[in-house]
């Protein structure tokens, strides 16, 4: 680093604009403006036509946008080191605010997440994201902090992430709470074993397959469950071969399962009634016992993990049905069923999704044109200016428009990852990855829900969905990142 440059701009704010990441600013501005225009289109009323009428959603959104520019500018004016210095107090204040919210927030459709301040309502959960990211970043920037060095580190990180989740769940805002789970990407980037991500992926896959294919098929068990058993066996063999790098164990287990499978198939063909659960449990159990005996020749820890995986998978499989029917609320079950295509429920949970698919599908390649969308305009799509704003883009701007929006988001997130990787402090990097993780989660879930690929989870599309809190929340996240990124050059390392 050039020391001259450093000394020249040692302290002050004018330097910020020299070092700021203009790419991000441009992408941000693009998204925010496109968002306001979409809100105008979504709430366009035949009687009112003024985009800037403050009694309309679009007019209000312009006010929020104007304020968010001011917020953004103010955030840039604050010394970048302040965020690191005050990360813990900010987090503590935010947790306090979340707690207070549960008590003082009025009940709005079952949710207690809004604090009403005269004419404005704000949702603290949106701002808690920033505080949590700062706090997590601060934890990772502790002197000599290495995530994998001690399980206590995981405990602290888990606590920082878990606290807001619990409080927001208490506010009955499941969607906003789930957003924090995205921070698993940050832990992964900072050294958490990739196996956790893999296990999470397996869990989601097992869950979907076991729930979706519930018709009884082979060996008297549902096709989905049968498939999950087969997947577990394939993964065990794969882990032995690739993860444990044990050719002998992998080969023996594979051969064992092939022989066992052929035996089972033969018995079924001969008309013997085999209980599928018993068959697979015996098979997997035998493999586990074999590995327990055989593992001492190999990398003990990795084989243990493989065995744990096998056992955990089986337990998980058995708990899927229990979780689905006994823990999830009926409306949540229905949302999952709709997303998995098991149930249409066009009058209930499926109505939104069906209508939004109709709206998007009717857009065609080029869309119906600005303000010409009939579906969103005529209120067929509920929540069209908030959670379902993507519909309006799909209907009026067509495939080209909606693809463009997705590509802009992709660009923005790649840009944030680039920014994250060029940071020299763990604080800045962890914070940047937190921002990226939140964004990934919001975009994936929101767009996925609108196009019918994810269950309906009510979270906004960043910068697009109507509402001051969400917009400001993301503005906070992004501009603090820009300020920290700018000070990287300002102060050097």
């Amino acid at each position, binding site marked *: 680093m050039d020391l001259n440059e450093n000394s020249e701009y040692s302290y002050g704010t004018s330097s910020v604009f020299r070092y700021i990441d203009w790419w991000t600013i441009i992408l941000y501005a693009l998204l925010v403006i496109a968002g306001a225009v979409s809100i105008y289109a979504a709430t366009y009323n035949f009687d009112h036509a003024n985009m800037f009428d403050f009694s309309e959603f679009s007019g209000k959104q312009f006010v929020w946008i104007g304020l968010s520019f001011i917020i953004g500018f103010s955030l840039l004016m604050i010394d970048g080191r302040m965020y690191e210095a005050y990360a813990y107090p900010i987090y503590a204040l935010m947790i306090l605010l979340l707690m207070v919210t549960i008590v003082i927030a009025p009940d709005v459709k079952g949710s207690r997440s809004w604090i009403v301040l005269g004419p404005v309502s704000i949702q603290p959960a949106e701002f808690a994201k920033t505080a949590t990211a700062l706090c997590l970043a601060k934890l990772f920037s502790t002197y000599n902090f290495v995530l994998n060095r001690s399980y206590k580190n995981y405990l602290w990180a888990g606590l920082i992430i878990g606290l807001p989740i619990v409080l927001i769940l208490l506010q009955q805002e499941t969607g906003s709470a789930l957003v924090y789970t995205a921070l698993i990407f940050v832990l992964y*980037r900072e050294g958490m074993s990739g196996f956790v991500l893999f296990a999470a992926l397996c869990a989601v896959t097992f869950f979907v397959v076991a729930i979706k294919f519930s018709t009884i098929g082979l060996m008297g068990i549902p096709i989905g469950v049968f498939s999950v058993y087969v997947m577990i066996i394939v993964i065990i063999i794969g882990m032995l071969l690739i993860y444990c790098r044990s050719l002998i164990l992998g080969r023996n287990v594979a051969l064992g399962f092939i022989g066992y499978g052929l035996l089972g198939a033969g018995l079924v063909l001969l008309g013997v009634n085999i209980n599928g659960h018993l068959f697979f449990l015996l098979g997997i159990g035998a493999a586990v016992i074999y590995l327990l005996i055989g593992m001492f020749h190999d990398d003990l820890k990795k084989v243990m993990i493989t065995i744990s995986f096998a056992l955990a998978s089986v337990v998980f499989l058995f708990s899927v049905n229990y979780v689905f029917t006994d823990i999830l609320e009926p409306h949540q079950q229905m949302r999952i069923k709709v997303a998995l295509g098991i149930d249409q429920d066009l009058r209930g949970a499926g109505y939104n999704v069906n*209508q939004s698919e109709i709206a998007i599908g009717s*857009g065609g390649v080029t869309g119906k044109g600005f303000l010409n969308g009939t579906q969103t305009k005529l*209120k067929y799509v509920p929540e069209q200016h908030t959670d379902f704003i993507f519909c309006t883009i799909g209907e009026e701007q067509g495939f080209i428009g909606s693809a463009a929006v997705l590509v802009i988001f992709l660009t923005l997130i790649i840009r944030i990852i680039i920014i994250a990787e060029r940071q020299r402090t763990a604080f800045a990097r962890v914070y940047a990855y937190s921002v990226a993780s939140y964004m990934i989660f919001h*975009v994936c879930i929101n767009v996925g829900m609108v196009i019918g690929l994810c269950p309906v989870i009510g979270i906004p599309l960043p910068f697009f969905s109507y509402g001051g809190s969400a917009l400001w929340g993301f503005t906070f996240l992004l501009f603090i990142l820009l300020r920290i990124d700018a000070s990287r050059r300002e102060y050097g390392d």
Partner: protein
Amino acid sequence: MRKDYNLEKRKYVIGGFFFLIVVIYLVRLFVLQVCDTTYKINADTNAFLQKIIYPSRGLIYDRNDSLVVLNQPAYDVMLIPRDVQPFDTIDFCNTLQITRSDFDARMADMKDPHKNPNYSSYTQQVFMAHLSAQDYGRLQEKLYRFPGFFIQKRILRQYNYNCAANILGDVREVNGNDIEKDNYYKPGDYTGDLGIEKSYEKYLRGEKGVEILIRDAYGKIKGKYNNGRNDKAPVAGKDLKLSIDMRLQRYGEQLMQHKIGAIVAIEPATGEILALVTSPTYDPNLLIGKQRGTNYRDLVNNRFRPLFNRAIMGAYPPGSTFKTTQALILRQEGIVSLSTMFPCYHGYINGHLKVGCHGHASPIALKQALQTSCNAYFCWGFFYMMGKRSKYKSTSDAFEVWKKHLVSMGYGYKLGVDLPGESRGFIPNSAFYDKTYGKGSWVGNTIISVAIGQGEILATPLQIANLGATIANRGYYITPHVVKEIKGGKLPANLLQRHQPTIEKRYYYDVIDGMRMSVLGGTCHGADFADVQVCGKTGTAQNPHGRDHSAFMGFAPMNVPKIAICVYVENAGFGATYGVPIGSLMMEKYLKGSISSARKGLESRMMNANTITMTSSGSKRK
């Protein structure tokens, strides 16, 4: 700060994960927006309420321009299930004067995929059709209380004459089949069902108009779409002018009451059908409105099958009326000359075979044979034709020639009348007999009864009347048809087509002489009326199921024929008993406008005669 390059690589996993998701979403968007078009249709039905404006259905006049069929307004209660919000069901039921269980049954029927395969909660469905004016008035006042329901004004038929139901047909609601065949129809539309309502449906129905309204998700109408520029005004259906003379038609139906059978009267020069009577028949007013369903079912279940239009669907043995065709064929093929005489010893006796005949002079020539309806003459003629090896290589060849002549006269195939359900009758071919008797093992005598219009031969009354018209025209006919004119349109060309049978014109004069002699001093005695010279031929068709059928074919006046006619009365005995008098009265009615006082007695005898026996109805014959 220490940098862990191993961990830095993980940015690719995180970035790659999001990249992958974006790609999946782009594919999904592509499928939704570009590949799948059903969403566009859904979107339109979603946001646009296409209010159908039904055109007025074409009116129907008879050949004398008197109005036969007209329209009357009716009101249907419709609903769009998705728009229905909770309402006071009791009040609704009371207003329509139905019970709660009626209400539930109607709702269930509407949603039943078997009864209403096109059910969709987004489109309008018929809740209850044909409201009375009082019910309509009551409901109209309260309609605002039942969101999602509305009243659709419709048009029902009204009939000025309570006759000719078999020609006019009726109008019914479309079913799934109709909608599948023709995408013009939407559930709740009406279509012609029988008669010309069906065959001229495309002219009569006009074109539906549509008013496009924009509505929001709550079903509230937000105004006209595009200021009504995309609306379409309905186009009224085209009026039809029938060739039917309704007075003659009604008279024919009166004559045929208490009888089973048919009358067909044709104007020979034009092929226009003047009357097309089937008996028993029904009042067309039965198939209008609310009661249509039950009445229709009753008609279907009626043992005399009034819906069976015997005039064009009934296939009967033509009996002796068929001898005129034989005379023409025998002359054309040069089998007989006018002086050829055949013996008749109370019948045709050839080896062991005997076909009976009644008493008359013997031997006998062609014209006298027609006059007296001699069976023997035509049997001999047929026998010699089938056996004439100097002309035909085999019986089979001879038979094919014989059959070809008959087909050219309109037998064995549909004539193409503009009414649905016409039967083709039956003329066997040699392959048919090859199959029955074995190839080459049948000769003229094997099948001798076809020579006198018995045996396998079947013809519709329309075909027999058409033969009368052909003879009256001295050698040609125009496709018989019941519609004379489509107002503002053109009759299909095939209805005006002139058909030329394979018989030379000169031979028709011999047959006409024979038919005239039959009236003057033969089986058709008494067919003449006033100063009109009638030509005729009786038929007494043997019928294995009961009494003989009484038939008559004729035309008048002899030299300038204005009407050709076929009368067919099932189980009524000799052709002379019912066929001739009824045919004669019909001709008099048409040509003179009324029946002379001298024949009033005959008229009332015919009208009051009851020939219905329980043994048969024409439909049972194949």
